[in-house]
């Protein structure tokens, strides 16, 4: 396991410092480095806050800036940030209009953000929106089954844009909740990953195996399958998503996300296959994003995300955004 790092203990802090230094135009460290915050807040705007474990960069720190997040909290690798980090982010960015916490749906993240919300409740108005875009898995049980993966960035972008345009907290909460039936993702891994602290790979794949249905934490997926060509793999992802998504009216947004070790050329090849599949199914794909946005350390693999947006949501998507990882219109 060769990586560019000094020690497992200092890795996240050093990387995050590099990030902040590289993007000082948009971001700054919060007090005690408990969060990464937008350099210039907009008074009276609802604060949009997200966060999660490290190892998914640029998610979420790369989305801090105009038209997206006001702050992001980073935990240890694959580990939720603490309530005290989240409370600190709330205190630094709530300019009076309240805070919306966007939380990827993992028990750990949900519990930490909920505790933070309880702790800050006296002094701040807070709502939580869960991102849960992963395809339905085997035993979803009470509906808490779907985890938040790459599609989370779509929720962050749309809520960030709406907040920038002055939407109040209650409206943002309702908007956020309405998104989940319309965003679906599925991932595939060609390799497992080694969490630096443990130096152990979460799973090991033979040279002829892939892992279908993985998330962004190096965990095993739903099934181990024989390696196949890109057409076979990407069509499988696309078909599963199209079958799982609840709403297919409106304009399609297609995101092909790299998991960290897969280069742009392969992502674009996968994009072509996914897009052709969607278009052949009569879906309209009019917005696209291809790149490493929500990674799983240096995993070789990718995920496909499809979302359906209304006209109004498309114009939110298109409105100016200026962050390290997404930027247009300004």
């Amino acid at each position, binding site marked *: 396991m060769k990586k560019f790092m000094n020690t497992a203990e200092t890795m996240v802090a050093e990387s995050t410092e590099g990030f902040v230094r590289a993007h000082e135009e948009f971001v700054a460290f919060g007090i005690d480095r408990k969060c990464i915050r937008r350099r210039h807040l907009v008074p009276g705007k609802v604060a949009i806050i997200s966060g999660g474990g490290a190892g998914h960069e640029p998610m979420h720190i790369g989305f801090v800036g105009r038209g997206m997040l006001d702050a992001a909290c980073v935990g240890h690798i694959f*580990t*939720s940030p*603490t309530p005290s980090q989240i409370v600190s982010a709330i205190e630094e960015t709530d300019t009076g209009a309240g805070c919306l916490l966007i939380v990827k749906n993992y028990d750990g993240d949900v519990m930490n953000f909920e505790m933070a919300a309880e702790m800050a409740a006296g002094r701040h108005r807070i709502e939580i929106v869960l991102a849960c875009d992963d395809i339905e898995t085997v035993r979803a049980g009470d509906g808490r089954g779907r985890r938040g993966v790459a599609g989370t960035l779509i929720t962050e972008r749309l809520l960030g844009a709406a907040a920038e345009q002055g939407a109040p907290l209650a409206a943002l909460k309702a908007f956020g909740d309405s998104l989940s039936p319309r965003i679906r993702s599925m991932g595939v891994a060609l390799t497992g990953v080694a969490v630096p*602290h443990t130096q*152990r790979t979460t799973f090991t794949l033979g040279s002829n195996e892939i892992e279908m249905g993985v*998330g962004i934490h190096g965990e095993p997926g739903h099934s181990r399958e024989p390696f196949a060509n890109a057409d076979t793999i990407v069509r499988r992802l696309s078909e599963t998503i199209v079958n799982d998504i609840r709403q297919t009216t409106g304009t399609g947004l297609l995101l092909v996300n790299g998991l960290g070790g897969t280069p742009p050329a392969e992502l674009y090849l996968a994009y072509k296959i996914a897009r052709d599949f969607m278009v052949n199914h009569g879906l309209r794909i009019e917005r696209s994003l291809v790149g490493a946005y929500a990674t799983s350390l240096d995993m070789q693999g990718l995920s496909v995300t499809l979302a359906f947006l209304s006209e109004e949501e498309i114009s939110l998507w298109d409105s100016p955004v200026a962050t390290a990882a997404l930027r247009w219109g300004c």
Partner: protein
Amino acid sequence: MSANAARRLSRMFHRISVAISAEKDHLSDLDGAIGDADHGITMSLGFQAVNGELAKHDLDEILPSEVFSLAASAFLDAVGASTGPLYATAFRKAAQALKRDETLSVAAQAAIVEAMTSGIRDRGKGQRGDKTMLDAWIPATEAAAAARDRQSSVSDMWDGILEAADAGARSTRSMVATRGRAARLGERSLGHIDPGAASAVVIIKAMKETFTENEPAE
């Protein structure tokens, strides 16, 4: 007496930390099979932080309930993860329970176990059979309650608690997870012990050793 009790709890947290650190790799391996391979790390970081925090305080000056309160916030600030809120809530609840009885009597010891379990259950909204740490903590609590009702000796009670927790943890091997990361694996989580249940047994064993040892002369 309560100063002495605080010292005892501090020894308990030290013992837990040593035991968890010794099992760190094993716990991460268990987590690697059905989760994200960090459970040994999160647990050892959490208990190291607890001990670091307790080292800052004069144990002659604080109550047992305060030891648990300090442990709760130290654990939480250090870890995040699933285990941060779960054990932080567990320790807070234990602190609340001890406020009614700061003696560390047998009944108070049983109350600690019960309170911790109820904290974990409240925070994680889980139940027995989910294939989580609750599959160790719930049987442990039942054993504690039964021992208190029977007015068992300290050592009998802890034998029962540990045995129940251990059996509970082992039973997770044949469960399909419905909570935590492992829930996404479905049937593939079968055949693996839940890491959180395994670490619960480590904790309970260290608690047992603390409460059943002869108090050292100080």
